[in-house]
Every structure is written in C-alpha cells, then in structure tokens.
C-alpha cells in the first residue's frame, strides 16, 4: 500500500496520530527542502517544518484526500514560508534569494562546513529565479507530473514546461561557464 493510501486508511479509522507518523516519515524531507528553498536558512527551515506538521496535524481530521497529500503539504509549507518571509521583510532583515551573491570569504568558509556537492547544488539553485527553481526541483527531484506542479504553484502546464526548460537551459549555461573557468 502507498503511504497516501495508508494515511487515508488510518484516518478513516480515526487513528490520526499513527497517520501523522507515516506522513512525517514520508514527507519530512519534502517539507524541509521546500522550506529551505524559500527561507535559505537551516534553522528557520527546521522551525517551519515543525510548524507545518503541527498545522497539518491539527487539520488532518478534515483531510479527505480530495487533493494529493504532497500538494496539500506543499500549500501549507508555501503559505507559512511566504508569511515568514513577509515578517522578515517587514523587519528588514531579508536576503533576496534571486540576487544572492556569495563573497569569496563567505564561500571559503562555507566550503569548510558544507560538502562540495551541497555547496555546488546551492550555487546552481541560486542562479535560478523562484518559479524555475521550484519547477526544476518538483519535476526533477520529486518527479511530480506537470498537472501536480500546476496545482501546487498555480501555473499553467504550458508555463511550467517553459519554466522547466529555461531552468535546465540556465543550468547548462552556468555549468559551461564554470567549466571554462569564468565562475569559481
């Protein structure tokens, strides 16, 4: 049985705590990585993951499987992230994701703490605008269909296909320039 079916089955039986355990073990990575892409801060992403699951737990009894669990969780995560970013923006301590530039000192510091791939992946993602980055991850990593992504992001399927292609194209150009030594 798929986790989605397991969860719905347990919910029908009124076992919301057990349903929640399966939900967390299957979607913790998804929620955290989504939060991480939006917030760009590990501590904030961890706190938000906790918040997402508490919110999901409190409204789990009302979930009847009209949409996919992943879509539902994505909507909660996205809303909470946007709220958190809005709060940060008002406080004036937000770092714009799309224009994130890493200084050479910061870069070398980070390399010590992070694995090489982690650093490379974050660099690659930082060159993509939000919609392209989200589409790339949801399509390439989460292997979701364009229909599912369309429901999550509220973008047309045609628009998503274009976003995905542009993301791949930009990454390809970025990797070529990196290979030629134009980017460290």
């Amino acid at each position: 049985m798929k986790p989605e079916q397991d969860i719905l089955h347990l919910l029908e039986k009124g076992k919301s705590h057990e349903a929640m355990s399966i939900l967390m073990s299957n979607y913790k990575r998804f929620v955290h990585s989504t939060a991480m892409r939006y917030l760009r801060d590990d501590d904030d992403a961890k706190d938000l993951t906790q918040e997402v699951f508490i919110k999901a737990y409190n409204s789990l009894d009302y979930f009847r499987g009209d949409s996919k669990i992943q879509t539902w969780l994505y909507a909660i995560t996205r809303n909470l992230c946007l709220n958190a970013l809005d709060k940060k923006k008002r406080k004036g301590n937000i770092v714009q994701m799309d224009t994130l530039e890493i200084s050479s000192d910061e870069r070398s510091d980070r390399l010590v703490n992070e694995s090489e791939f982690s650093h490379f992946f974050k660099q690659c993602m930082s060159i993509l605008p939000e919609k392209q980055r989200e589409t790339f991850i949801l399509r390439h990593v989460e292997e979701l269909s364009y229909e599912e992504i369309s429901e999550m992001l509220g973008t047309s399927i045609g628009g998503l296909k274009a976003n995905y292609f542009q993301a791949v194209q930009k990454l390809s150009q970025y990797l070529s320039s990196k290979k030629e030594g134009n980017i460290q």
Partner: protein
Amino acid sequence: MNNHERISQMIPDYINGTLSEVDMHIVEKALASSHDLQHKHDEYVHVFTALKKEDIIQLMNDEVESVDVILPFKAKRKMFIPKIMIGTTTSIAACLLLWIGINEQTPINVEKSDIMKIPSIELTETIDEYTPLELQSEEVEEVILDEILTVYVSDIESGKEINPLLEKEITNYLLQENADEEVL
C-alpha cells in the same frame, strides 16, 4: 513556437524518460536529423549528470536528519462537570480523609465496645419543607472545620481526653490562620 523550439523544450523530459511514447519517437527522430538539437541534448545530459536526483535527495535527507518534529497532544473535548458535583466530591473527600485520620489514631488495644458510640440525634420538630443549602466546596470545608472546632472546644471544657493528632492539626491550623491574618 516553431517545431525546433517545441522539440528543444521536450529534451529534458526525454532525457529523464518522462515523455509519452509518441513524443519520445518525435524527439528521437528530430535528434537524429539535427546537430543543433543533438548538441543541446548533450548539454542537458551534463546538467542531469552533475545534479543527480539521488545526490540531491541524499543531501536533503542529510539536512532533514536533525529535524525533530514533536506533535502536541490534541486537546480532548472538555467534559461538562456541574459545580455542585465538584463541591460535593471535595466535601466527601475531605470527610473521608478526616475519618481515616481519626481512625488511624485509635489505639489497637482499645476494644470496640470502649469506643464511645456516636449519640443519635433526635429531631424535636418535624420540618415539613426542607430546602437544602447550596454550598460551595470552600463553604463546606468551613462548616466542617467549624464543627470540628466546636467539638474540640466542648471536649476541652468537659475535661475529656483529646486525640493528640487532632489537637496538633487544630493548633497548626489556628497558627496558620493567625499568620495569614498578620500578613494581611
């Protein structure tokens, strides 16, 4: 969008094997006949090789490992308990504790017949209409204490033997009350 652009856009999904069979054939045909498309194909393959899905998932899993989600206990619906029940239960509990306390102080070698029987109270008048007092738990406690104190005082006056524990408890209670009054 011309045919060349349309097929270019399909290449990322072709590489990941997420195209329909019909579209796969269209892309394969186009790749075989166009060097430009073949070149793009190779570039995009490089992107997906550099950003392997498995590596990204591994990275996300490593990041989420330290995330602990603690779910709160769901608040159960509060049971409605009438105030009178709370008061009654408290009074019964107080009487029981008092009774146990007094009983435990009764010496073992004392015969049952030696224990003074509680005199039965006979009503001199018959009350036709009896309306019970609605007392709060604090009021009930006060009534019980007043009763105990009255018995205690009358016992002292008549020169009867006083239960030492009861005497100690009453002394403590009176001292406490005096201290409270002083504080006030």
